[in-house]
């Protein structure tokens, strides 16, 4: 479908897609956010460490901070999809 849209062969599209994924990963690893025009931004967010309590044992455990991949859609897409 992307192929049709962009006038490319399916093979090329798949190739481009995988390449794009590779780029996205590399940049994420470099702590760079990736902007896709008209869609949104992929970025890494750090989730802060927090303390959880085991409900049964009452054991207190710290969940270490971790990174999370977050996608933030662009405002107009957000609005557009709200009403779907």
């Amino acid at each position: 479908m992307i192929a049709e849209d962009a006038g490319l062969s399916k093979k090329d599209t798949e190739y481009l897609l995988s390449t794009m994924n590779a780029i996205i990963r590399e940049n994420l690893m470099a702590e760079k956010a990736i902007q896709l025009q008209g869609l949104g931004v992929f970025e890494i967010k750090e989730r802060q460490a927090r303390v959880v309590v085991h409900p049964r044992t009452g054991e207190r455990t710290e969940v270490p901070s971790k990174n999370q991949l977050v996608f933030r859609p662009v405002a107009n897409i957000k609005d557009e999809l709200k009403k779907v």
Partner: protein
Amino acid sequence: MAEKLSWSELRRALAVRAGVSEKTAGAFLNGLVNQLINGLKSDKQVKINGLGTFKLQTVAPRKSVNVSTGEEIMIEGYNKIVFSPEAGLKELVESRQPSDVSLQPLVFSDQPNEGDFPIDPIKKLGEQADEIVGLLAEIDSIEEPKEEPKEVVEEPKEVETPEEEPKVVVPEEEPKVVIPEVPEIPKEPKVVIPEEEPEIIVQRPKKPEKKKYHFFRDVLISVLILLLLLAGGYFFLRNQLSGILESLLKPEQEQTEQVESPQIENPTPTLAEGEGEEESPSQLDLIPEGDIPQAQILDEFNAISAGEELEEPYSDLITTEPMHEGSRLTWMAKRFYGDKRFWPYLYDANRDRISNPSNIEVGTPIRVPRLTQAQLDTTNRASMEALDKLRIEAEAACKK
């Protein structure tokens, strides 16, 4: 995330990497975005291989309150885009820990070290167990009826649950000593009493001071051990005793039947003491009604109503038994009638000899009247009321 890979940068990187023109790369990216949006609109879910899944999530309408006016408002439902990265990508991202903290949960050590906590309680309880077993041996070696020692043994059990210890021991047992209902033998009881109960009382309070986490567990374990020791000791001694008891009781009965005078000597001056303290009026009421009185079989006054019976002299006696040191009317009632609650009858039958039912001289011969079935029937209202009347009188006598 300071830096951002812009659209144009991405396009250029893609073009270079894939060996296509920037234009093609741009077209591809645009196509991707469009497909994504359209797919979300139509299917609500789009998966991009190697990246992740985009989903449209519906947020249900909900009520809220306008913060400034306090007015209730309705927040309409809407859709939002949720992106969940593919497992591989997610791991990749998460593995990039900012500080490379391992995922091992870190357990807080807010519980006290067990090392700090001495095993003393167990030792102490062990000592106590020994003491109590020793005391039991003493008690049992004295010719006390079976029932009594049993009560003695069981009382401490209840008391020994750790949390209750400090409180229960004091209020429950001490008042009992004072309670005048139960006839007490003058002077003597006090000699031995302090040996048994107070030891328990003295040692117990120390433990609760160490309020640590594993304290109660330890105490529970040791209490169990203690109980086992007690039970073992009790049953062992009881078996040995029953033989002795029977042989002793028979001669007594013979004596008393012949003479029936107040002057019968106490054939068994004993050290029995202590046990009586644990009897209390409250316990009397707690006795289940199911007990089958021994005398029931022998009753000869079935026809006579309980009320009338009370007025009559207690002519038919089971036996006359001298008051043992440390014995109680309630115990005798339990022994002969199967229920402690019938002790007022004993008082009633011996008014001429007993001035204070809670303080009967050792050796005082106690007439044990035969009671009728009606009197022994705890469900019989008339007899129970009569019994109650007697009990009030007896209690009044205690206070004089």
